[in-house]
């Protein structure tokens, strides 16, 4: 199945990615070829097979106690932020 330009525009929107006019035809072609490539899976008989989410059987992600284990590093972490004011992250206005 080949993807259309509209499909790719929709995917890009869902993924929150701006795609330029020059990039668009390249993605229409290459995403179509990838989708066609992975379509090979549809021919495999997987009746009765449980989906596998973790590569080690029997292992589960551990939970930890809900206890404070870190000290306050907000100044150090926010040094990497594009815009900070009074210890808060600054973004374009969302509420008029």
């Amino acid at each position, binding site marked *: 199945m080949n993807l259309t330009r509209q499909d790719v525009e929709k995917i890009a929107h869902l993924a929150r990615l701006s795609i330029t006019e020059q990039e668009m035809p390249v993605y229409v072609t290459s995403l179509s070829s990838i989708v066609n490539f992975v379509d090979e899976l549809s021919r495999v008989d997987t009746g009765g097979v449980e989906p596998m989410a973790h590569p080690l059987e029997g292992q589960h992600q551990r939970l930890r106690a809900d206890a404070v284990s870190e000290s306050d590093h907000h100044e150090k972490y926010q040094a990497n932020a594009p815009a900070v004011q009074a210890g808060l992250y600054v*973004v374009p206005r969302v509420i008029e």
Partner: protein
Amino acid sequence: MLHNLSIGELGRRLNSGQISSAELARYFLARIERLNPALNALITPTPELALAQAKDADRRRAAGEQGPLLGIPLIHKDIFCTNGVRTSCGSRMLDNFIAPYDATVVAQLKAAGAVMLGKANMDEFAMGSSNETSFYGPVGNPWDTTKVPGGSSGGSAAATAARLVPFATGTDTGGSIRQPAALTGVTGVKPTYGRVSRFGMIAFASSLDQAGVLACSAEDAAIVLKVMAGFDPRDSTSIDLPVPDYPAALNAPLAGLKIGLLREFFDGLEARNTALIQDALRIYRGLGAETVEVSLPHLPLSVPTYYVVAPAECSSNLSRFDGVRYGYRCTQPKDLLDMYKRSRGEGFGAEVKRRIMTGTYVLSAGYFDAYYLKAQKVRRLITDDFRKAFERVDLLIGPTTPTPAFAIGAKIDDPVTMYLNDIYTIGANLAGLPGLSLPCGFVEELPMGLQLIGPHFSEGKLLNAAHQFQQATDWHRRSPRGYE
């Protein structure tokens, strides 16, 4: 020459006082300064930090401390967070990101006294098989700088092959340690899923990612892996099992070892490459191993399975890059949505965007069952094939890659052709198994890799089998011209 010495020999010279850690760091830093411009293997050299760490190692040694990595130089793949040092992940998105803490792997190696000389180039967010997707440009293969070094740990592999450093860290999601190790003629180990901590290692595909090492021999890799491996409460997928003494197991005899030849790996393999693997099998038989052919019928489905699972996980993991808390933000966003879209659209490169969109598509409403759930089911079939094979054999053997290093630019415009480079390596990631690539000869004067895959937590056996091969051969001692 110092750059051709093993980690063990460097340690002996440091212990005897023949050389200091500071001198060793200066030696390798000078080599980087002279040879890296033609390779672009390092994104960020850290000479001042390196000398400070080396002097600290000298003080620790003078105070009576010993340790196999005390004062030994390394570079970290730029996917590992290094406190106070730029951690770019090969992306414009993180070009200005100064990591505020050390990854556990970085902390472990630092605690062992290893000296970081810099950060290694890599495919952007580890998505690539050629190191060409890096924001910082491609890496030259030291065997022929018009060829790729493989990827995504291309900088780590090229630097190790050129002996710019005794060893380097890497990560492997679909072959990103083993494939570049093969294409540059070094030894690379991808441990069992969960064996090495991923805390502070920037996530790509969380059910596949694993950290490991690239070095000049299995012996060196064993020394490093012993330090890197182990339980980390800060990584919820880390496995709480004791770490075996990998170096101590290197010399176990291979008599009676059952090696399975992966039939599917030889279908369509070029005769010259098959011949190299046959030579390797003869050596193993000479060492007392028994070789039998085994079939993993679902293994050829590894690549399409991977290219559903990995992009799906990547699209989720990379949603954290939103232009708010860290990383690139576009100029003059007109609203929040515009800021998200343009920050991500401009901050990510072409391949990363392609993978995010592939993942978004296979997870989207109406396609989830047909692609993602289906791939997870096929993943189980592949994993079951491996499990059954390991009921018959101790380890599996085959080529690491279908071809030697290809030309820079040759495959970058055709993603599916590029993805097929990882046809032999991806299976181990899907099944969470440890894999190792070691040099086994040359095709057209370019190195080829032999791959060993073992059951979960069999890193010690893989290193043992690789070391025994390297005692009987000298492929791993060959150096590219100009880097001897």
